[in-house]
């Protein structure tokens, strides 16, 4: 009986404890109500492409065109979202719909998506990764990513950390030479990634470390052959029949031209019969003596200057994947070890913009499918290939959409992937109402427009032909881009002298500057482009140096003053600025007034260039009896290129009117360069490349300069500009960092490398690390502006146009906001509002008699 009472008492106590607990839990639940499912319309978005994607494999895709499918099949560890103002009600309305009014202008947040945690583990990773104490203290080199446990492929197959590690091994597999492998040793510098890809291959490396200053340490062996560092080190080779650091002309050319005579000439001539495939022979004591004698007579008298004729073969080490900096310590954890740090976390431990910008995801392939798609090398080839993600059957998705139809050269369809983890996330509630995306290839602009106006397409890019009718439409959205375009002028005198076009004048800076000042950029852009904006610098207004606070590089005092100096303004002692005619109170006022157009000064410069040309006719290979021929080259003969050519031609003819060059300039059009237009320009096949430029890297203005000053990046159009040897003296701003306040002289390339924190990795003589986060941002901005100024002042590149695209979006869908956000665009498919379901849309179009022209030209 007593036992029973005990039981009753125990039950009563448990009940007494449990009831309040359950009540408290229920109350907590009430405090955080679930977001109600809003009654929103869903529909199919129909779009078009002029070129169909063919290879949406993350490991191998060749260009951005392929990302139009790829972007929807993959997910991110972290992703951007709008910042919603809590004071205005936060992200969601009471009915669960998105509260667009609460979107903070220019604001953003970074949230976890496929990952649940990100930790900096630089100080705790295995010693084999070789991080120094300093690196461990600063952090940012090794990161541990914890994955969600519900990641799945579209067929339901689970995904874990080993899939990512497997994929990275495939990405870097030297047998495949995958196009995107370089992402992991140039952008995200995973330890040993490059060595694993290059595995055992060799490259011919220059002996010159820095011109007239530092060369290799060399030692002759018993047979009189020079080696690098030690007698059994890499053999030093001399360029005999190929160009070298000394000159593009081979050594043999100096013999033939009579600069080298006697025994030395005989030796070099005989060696020219023994050169290897690269036109080189081992540098012997005898040959080096001959080179030293030549350098003593014609060089600058620097120690070891003869090495400018020499090089050595460097062999990349054999490497196992276990030495590559990526592994999975547990089923849902990945550790990535880097050579260059990334600051993915803010001081409070939350995700920084860098996390979603530089480190948003790692490549992922579905192992069984990928293995079945591998193709062995064909006869005569050693290259393994794969057709993974090139067709419906070989495609797998772990993103919000999956591929459900693909017809090569015709169309594709993406549909909602119900196995995507993201649809269950609170952050995504009541979003992604575009349930299907249908894309058709329409190459002809007129066809696309008719399709759009008859309701068959839901958006279209605004082109020059239609811009007047639709630029003010209420359906038109404008978006700035990073693309910076302009004229590139060929100025390599060695080539200009021999091209038969009598145009050595292009090598004269004043002439190129005259072209820059003759270009009325506002008029040029209004005439030749849809909606692009005038650009005076190398970087447009979409480059941010301080992403968190919306700091735009182009708006900084350093960037503005640099442009003022480039376009002929000078600062007075009282801080006012003058262009020689007008005086402006401050740099802001001068900058507002500047348009880069000064035809009067241009004509003066044409005169001075002509004087220089005629007084040194032989040097410039100029023949006064012949016209000066400038060849405008392009890839294809199209309306747009013709229109551009006509504008440039007229501009150049106007420039020389009333000058000594009047009637002597002949400008012609050549559209025969096709896909080789860039290579041909760099080789000097034509003189003017218009509409050329670069884009991308919106949050890294300093890094973007690689396109203009980094010869190793292979992007420079002005390949003749030897930035590795052209010196620049600059005083670094005061501060608490290495080099602060010092007047330093180094090559432009070295300055660039220091600015981006890669000087040590690039074996530069000066190895300051002034990368982002390592020195005050102001100092970086000042140096970036200086490098931009120096580059612009060469006038090899004449900036004209900044990307600014326009899109007309149909009535079926509306973007959540018409204010462009650098991270979110207009909200994309994720936030798009569906105004009409598919069946409602059919009726809507029928109600308009199949022609929506009058609707789409409405301005409000």
């Amino acid at each position: 009986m007593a036992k029973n009472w005990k039981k009753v008492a125990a039950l009563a106590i448990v009940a007494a404890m449990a009831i309040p607990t359950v009540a408290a839990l229920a109350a907590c639940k009430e405090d955080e109500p679930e977001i109600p499912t809003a009654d929103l319309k869903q529909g199919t978005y129909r779009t078009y492409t002029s070129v169909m994607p063919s290879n949406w494999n993350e490991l191998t895709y060749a260009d951005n065109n392929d990302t139009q499918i790829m972007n929807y099949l993959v997910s991110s560890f972290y992703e951007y979202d709008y910042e919603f103002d809590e004071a205005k009600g936060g992200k969601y309305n009471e009915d669960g719909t998105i509260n667009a009014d609460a979107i903070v202008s220019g604001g953003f947040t970074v949230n976890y998506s496929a990952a649940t945690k990100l930790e900096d583990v630089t100080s705790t990773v295995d010693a084999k990764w070789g991080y120094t104490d300093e690196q461990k203290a600063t952090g940012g080199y090794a990161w541990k990513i914890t994955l969600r446990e519900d990641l799945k492929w579209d067929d339901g197959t689970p995904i874990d950390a080993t899939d990512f590690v497997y994929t990275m091994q495939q990405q870097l597999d030297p047998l495949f030479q995958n196009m995107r492998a370089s992402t992991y040793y140039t952008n995200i510098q995973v330890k040993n990634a490059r060595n694993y890809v290059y595995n055992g291959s060799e490259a011919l490396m220059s002996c010159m470390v820095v011109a007239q200053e530092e060369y290799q340490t060399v030692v002759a062996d018993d047979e009189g052959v020079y080696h690098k560092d030690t007698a059994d080190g890499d053999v030093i080779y001399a360029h005999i029949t190929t160009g070298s650091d000394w000159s593009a002309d081979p050594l043999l050319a100096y013999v033939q031209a009579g600069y080298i005579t006697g025994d030395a000439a005989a030796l070099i001539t005989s060696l020219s019969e023994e050169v290897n495939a690269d036109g080189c022979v081992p540098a012997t004591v005898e040959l080096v003596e001959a080179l030293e004698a030549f350098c003593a007579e014609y060089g600058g008298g620097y120690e070891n200057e003869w090495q400018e004729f020499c090089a050595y073969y460097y062999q990349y080490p054999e490497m196992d994947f276990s030495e590559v900096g990526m592994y999975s310590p547990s089923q849902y954890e990945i550790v990535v070890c880097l050579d260059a740090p990334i600051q993915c976390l803010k001081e409070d431990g939350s995700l920084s913009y860098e996390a979603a910008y530089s480190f948003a995801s790692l490549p992922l392939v579905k192992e069984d499918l990928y293995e079945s798609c591998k193709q062995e090398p064909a006869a005569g080839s050693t290259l393994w290939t794969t057709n993974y993600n090139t067709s419906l059957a070989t495609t797998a998705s772990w993103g919000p959409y999956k591929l459900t139809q693909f017809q090569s050269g015709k169309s594709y369809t993406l549909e909602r992937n119900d196995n995507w983890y993201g649809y269950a996330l609170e952050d995504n509630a009541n979003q992604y109402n575009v349930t299907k995306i249908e894309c058709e290839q329409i190459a002809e602009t007129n066809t696309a427009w008719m399709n759009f106006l008859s309701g068959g397409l839901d958006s279209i890019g605004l082109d020059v032909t239609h811009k007047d009718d639709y630029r003010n439409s209420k359906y038109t959205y404008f978006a700035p881009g990073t693309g910076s375009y302009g004229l590139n002028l060929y100025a390599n005198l060695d080539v200009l002298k021999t091209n038969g076009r009598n145009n050595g004048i292009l090598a004269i800076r004043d002439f190129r500057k005259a072209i820059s000042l003759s270009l009325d950029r506002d008029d040029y852009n209004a005439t030749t482009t849809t909606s692009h904006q005038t650009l005076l610098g190398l970087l447009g207004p979409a480059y941010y140096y301080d992403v968190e606070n919306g700091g735009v590089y182009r708006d900084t005092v350093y960037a503005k003053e640099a442009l003022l100096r480039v376009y002929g303004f000078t600062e007075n002692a009282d801080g006012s600025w003058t262009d020689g005619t007008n005086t402006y109170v401050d740099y802001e006022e001068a900058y507002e007034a500047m348009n880069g157009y000064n035809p009067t000064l241009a004509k003066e410069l044409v005169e001075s260039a002509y004087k220089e040309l005629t007084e040194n006719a032989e040097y410039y290979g100029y023949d006064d009896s012949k016209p000066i021929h400038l060849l405008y080259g392009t890839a294809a003969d199209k309306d747009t290129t013709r229109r551009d050519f006509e504008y440039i031609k007229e501009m150049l003819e106007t420039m020389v009117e009333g000058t000594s060059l009047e009637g002597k300039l002949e400008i012609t059009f050549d559209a025969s360069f096709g896909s080789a237009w860039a290579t041909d320009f760099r080789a000097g096949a034509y003189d003017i490349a218009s509409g050329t430029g670069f884009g991308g890297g919106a949050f890294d203005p300093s890094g973007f300069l690689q396109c203009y000053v980094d010869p190793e990046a292979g992007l420079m159009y002005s390949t003749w500009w030897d930035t590795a040897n052209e010196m620049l003296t600059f005083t670094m701003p005061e501060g608490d960092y290495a080099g602060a306040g010092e007047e330093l002289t180094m090559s432009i390339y070295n300055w660039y490398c220091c600015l981006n924190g890669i000087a040590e990795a690039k074996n530069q003589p000066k190895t300051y690390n002034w990368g982002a986060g390592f020195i005050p941002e102001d100092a970086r901005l000042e140096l970036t502006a200086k490098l931009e100024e120096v580059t612009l002042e060469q006038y090899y590149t004449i900036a004209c146009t900044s990307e600014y695209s326009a899109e007309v979006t149909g009535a079926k869908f509306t973007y959540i906001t018409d204010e462009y956000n650098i991270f979110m665009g207009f909200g994309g498919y994720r936030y798009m509002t569906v105004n009409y379901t598919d069946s409602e849309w059919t009726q809507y179009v029928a109600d308009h008699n199949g022609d929506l022209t009058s609707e789409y030209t409405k301005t409000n």
Partner: protein
Amino acid sequence: MYMFKYVLKRLGLLIMTFCIIMLMCFTLIKLLPIVVTVQIGQDANIIYRQLEARGYITNVVYDSATQLWSYDTVPILKQLGFYLQRIFQGDFGIGVSMAEYRNQPVWDIFMEKMPPTVLINVYSTLIGVPIGLGLGIFAALKKNKWQDQVISVFIILLISVPSIVLGLIVQYVFCFKLQWFPLTMNSGFDYFTWPMFRSMLPAVFSLCLSSIAGYARFTRAELTEVLTSEFMLLARTKGLTRGQATLRHALRNAMVPIFPMILSEFVLVLSGSLVIERMFSIPGVGRLYLDSITYQDYDFFMLLSGFYTLVGLAAGIITDISYGFIDPRIRMGAR
């Protein structure tokens, strides 16, 4: 027997000519300098290594002194040997440089894109030939009357207006304004359904308009000449009606030059109409051949060269043989 020997001889010549043309094609495309384009974020080293691993170039070396890449081209004959080895194994290769077909099997793409081109042109021929011949015959029979004048003006109009303008008119009027047809061809592979056929019709009309004009003009000219021949007078004096004489004698004689024209035009259009295919989004072979040269996609170029060469040579034989059927006086291979 004469004919059999003749056909055998022509087939032998066909094979020999085919081999020579293919050898020339392979050599010429391989003689073009290789274009290497490095975009932002790409590693030039990987691009050169890919070319090396594909067996196009060898001895690839980057010279950091001159910042130039150097390489030797693998001897063309050696490359040809490997190519033939692959072909005999049934491997036609994969797309390499054309953006729309990278890493996709060349043969599969070709087989996928051929049907729309063939169908559009078959439909165009089926519609164009009877209408063209009919108009030509009618104009010849009504020579110099108002009917002939009207047809002639119509023909001149169709011949003078470029196909791009004709296509645009068809598309704007019938597809956009009247909405009788879709603006572009439907997606999918169900080529023999009514919706698909309907979506092909604007392209078919645009293609066959100029063919109709060509056939009509040629037929009128040939028939007019034959109708005034003496043997026609003889036929009529033998008691044949005008219709009988025209159908049995005049038309058959006039067809001797017309029939090969139809055949050759059909072969020509197999290569696809670049303009019409682009305008109506036909997933055909129109641009494939041209692009394969522009982008130096070797495997595509060789397959398409082989196909068109073979079709062209075969058409030549068929045309020659067809003379014998149309005109019994012509005997192939007879001494």
